[in-house]
């Protein structure tokens, strides 16, 4: 008997059910989309903030009391591979750019050797790691082309203007002639330098396998008070926790460990701003999500309430026919569950499309999906449907069949 009533109520109310399912689906889509966004926004903005430049720099350790005018110190180019192959946080290393800075003894012009779209083969990885200043310093602009051979170099914009050099001209560095393949514009001190491929500069100035500094662009976790502590003053437990969290300081420490004779520092202006911006945005998105979810679930509930309040006549009939309080409650609850499940499923599928679109439009990459949201949102949908049914159920149970059927309320 009960089942017949439930079945009938679905069949007779096709249109109304459809309306409620749509409302729940839309609400669920919104909830799932916003939650997916909140969970992924940190990672996406973190990646975006990498365009501010390197947040870690590795430099040769300054020998104590060596004085500033001591011998130039270098790091080993071969150690760079370890940053992507060995350290605990290697998957957070987005880009690496080594530089070798030499002052030409003849001309006095600074010469810079670096990587541009350099392919680094990492043992155990199928694809090579392509990196260089184009990844670490995306605001550097080349007018012309990057040197294709070891007989070509770039000239910084300000230097080119000063000595009257253009593309295809010849320039001297380290006692050799080079063809200018392009002009480099960085907005920084590189505009006054001659810039070439790392290997070329190493060969010309007799410094094979050596680099002056290594710039690293890494995805980091925003700093908190515990992260600012001096590692030497941490307890074993604190140290482990710090080491295993992707703070810019702990990643820097791990990089220091694989470069003998180095000290690695976070580039604090970049690291600080990054942390600040991430914290703010995360909070903002979380708050807006909460607000929207609250509004959406309440609106969906009101839809449910409205749809069901008008069926008092039907309930009166049911009661007159013999359904008791428990039965009416069951019937309405069954409806709510079906609506919740159907709407929840539809909503979740809709949210997949929505988050895909938002991810691609804003960040150029799909947002990370969390499968747990599917059951979570469906349960939420059913719960909201039940809440929306609760009031009418209460009212339904209070109805005196005779009064309603005769036309009263």
């Amino acid at each position, binding site marked *: 008997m009960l089942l017949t009533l439930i079945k009938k109520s679905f069949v007779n109310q096709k249109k*109304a059910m459809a*309306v*409620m399912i749509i*409302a729940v689906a*839309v*609400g669920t889509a*919104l909830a799932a989309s*916003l939650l997916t*966004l909140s969970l992924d926004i940190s990672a996406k*903005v973190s990646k975006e*903030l990498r*365009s*501010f*430049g390197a947040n*870690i*720099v590795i*430099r040769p350790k*300054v*020998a*104590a*009391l060596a*004085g*500033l*005018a001591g011998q130039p110190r270098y790091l080993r180019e071969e150690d760079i591979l370890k940053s992507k192959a060995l350290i605990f946080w290697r998957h957070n290393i987005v880009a690496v750019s080594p530089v070798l800075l030499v002052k030409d003894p003849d001309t006095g012009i600074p010469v810079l050797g670096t990587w541009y779209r350099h392919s680094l083969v990492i043992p155990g990885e199928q694809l090579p790691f392509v990196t260089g200043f184009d990844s670490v310093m*995306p*605001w550097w602009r080349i007018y012309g082309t990057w040197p294709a051979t070891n007989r070509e170099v770039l000239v910084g914009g300000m230097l080119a203007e000063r000595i009257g050099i253009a593309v295809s001209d010849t320039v001297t560095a380290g006692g050799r002639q080079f063809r200018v393949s392009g002009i480099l514009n*960085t907005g*920084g001190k590189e505009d006054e330098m001659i810039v070439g491929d790392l290997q070329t500069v190493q060969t010309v100035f007799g410094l094979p396998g050596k680099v002056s500094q290594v710039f690293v662009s890494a995805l980091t976790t925003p700093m908190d008070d515990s992260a*600012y502590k001096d590692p030497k003053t941490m307890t074993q437990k604190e140290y482990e926790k710090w080491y295993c969290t992707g703070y810019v300081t702990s990643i820097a420490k791990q990089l220091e460990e694989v470069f003998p004779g180095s000290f690695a*520092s*976070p*580039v*604090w*202006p*970049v*690291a*600080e*701003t990054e942390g*600040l*911006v991430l914290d*703010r*945005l995360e*909070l*903002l998105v979380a708050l*807006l999500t909460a*607000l929207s979810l609250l*509004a*959406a679930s*309440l*609106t969906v509930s*009101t*839809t449910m309430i*409205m*749809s069901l*309040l*008008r069926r008092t*006549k039907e309930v009166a009939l049911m009661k007159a026919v013999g359904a008791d309080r428990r039965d009416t409650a069951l019937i309405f609850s069954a409806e709510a569950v079906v609506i919740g499940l159907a709407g929840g499923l539809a909503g979740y599928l809709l949210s997949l499309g929505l988050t895909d679109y938002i991810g691609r*439009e*804003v*960040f150029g990459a799909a947002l990370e999906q969390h499968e747990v949201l599917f059951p979570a949102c469906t349960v939420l949908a059913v719960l909201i449907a039940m809440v929306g049914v609760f009031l009418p159920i209460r009212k339904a149970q209070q109805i005196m069949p005779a009064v309603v059927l005769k036309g009263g309320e």
Partner: protein
Amino acid sequence: MNTWFFYFLKKSVFQRRGRFLISSSAVMLTVTAVTALVTVSSGIRDKLGSQLSRYGANMIITDTRGRTISEKTAGDLRTLSADVREFSCQAYGTIRTGTDDVEVIGKDLGGLSGYRIHGRPPEAVNEAMAGVSLRDALGLKEKEPFPLAGSKEILTITGFFERGSDEDAALVMPLATAQRLLGLSGVSAVLLNVDTRAIGGFEQAASARFPHLRVKTLRQVAAAEERLLDKVRLLMLLMTAVVSFSSVIALGSTMGATVIERMEEVALMRSLGAAPGRIRCLFLSEAVLAGTAGSVAGYVLGFIAAEAVSKTAFGEFVSISLAAGPLAFVCGILIAATTAYFPVRNAMKLMPAKILRGNQGA
């Protein structure tokens, strides 16, 4: 419109207080969410922008002739545009220790950011802090005087800093101290953080007014700022669109359900002889009334929510978006009216007798 109309309207609202409240609540919730989102979106550029400006300067102005910039000129540059968010001056030079030439940077040390400091930053006029590379190279110790050569000045090291740049091999001190040590009457560079949208205009204005100054945009900062702000704005826009859309749909179904519920009433009115036009008018007026009440409440609530969100996330209040108010108001009413219109029209098409007999939704 006669007294009958207003009587009915009044009865409708008061006797069915529950229904009216539900309809206007639905409108209110929608308007709240949309208002909050629009208000926050409109202010996000400023809020986030001022966060980013703490990164540092995105423009640097020096003298092409290698001289210093006078305090007066620096002041003029600062007031050249209202879009100047951060302003500071720096003095550069070198001083000698026993065997080395050490770089000196004098700057405004209030609100120092981008430094990790061990010890404390210099405050008094004869204090300085040294970069970690300098510390290691010269074996400097905290609270001891810096080994200045050829000067009667005593410079006390108050601490050491790490910045992650070439500055780590320099001495940083208050601007006045540097000026005195280096014998400068003005400043070596003026650093500004200008709203990225106004950078081009500022560059032109500054170059025109002071042709002997070189005005350079630090592309590293400016480009990255712009990119991030664009993305965040786009994100907010999409979020607002998604929330608005879904709220409207949910609202629509609520309003629709409200009307469907009262089809019997409509049928009764018609069988009593009421003109279809009048009935439509009545329902629409009810919807508009609910819409108005909901919109006003929603706008107020939305604004409060936006301020709460802004204060929590950015520590500042966001200014009222004048567009949001009337927009939300009109939208609320329009949606309420539209979503009430169609069910009413459908109800009107049906034969009153059929409805009254109980064949609902036939």
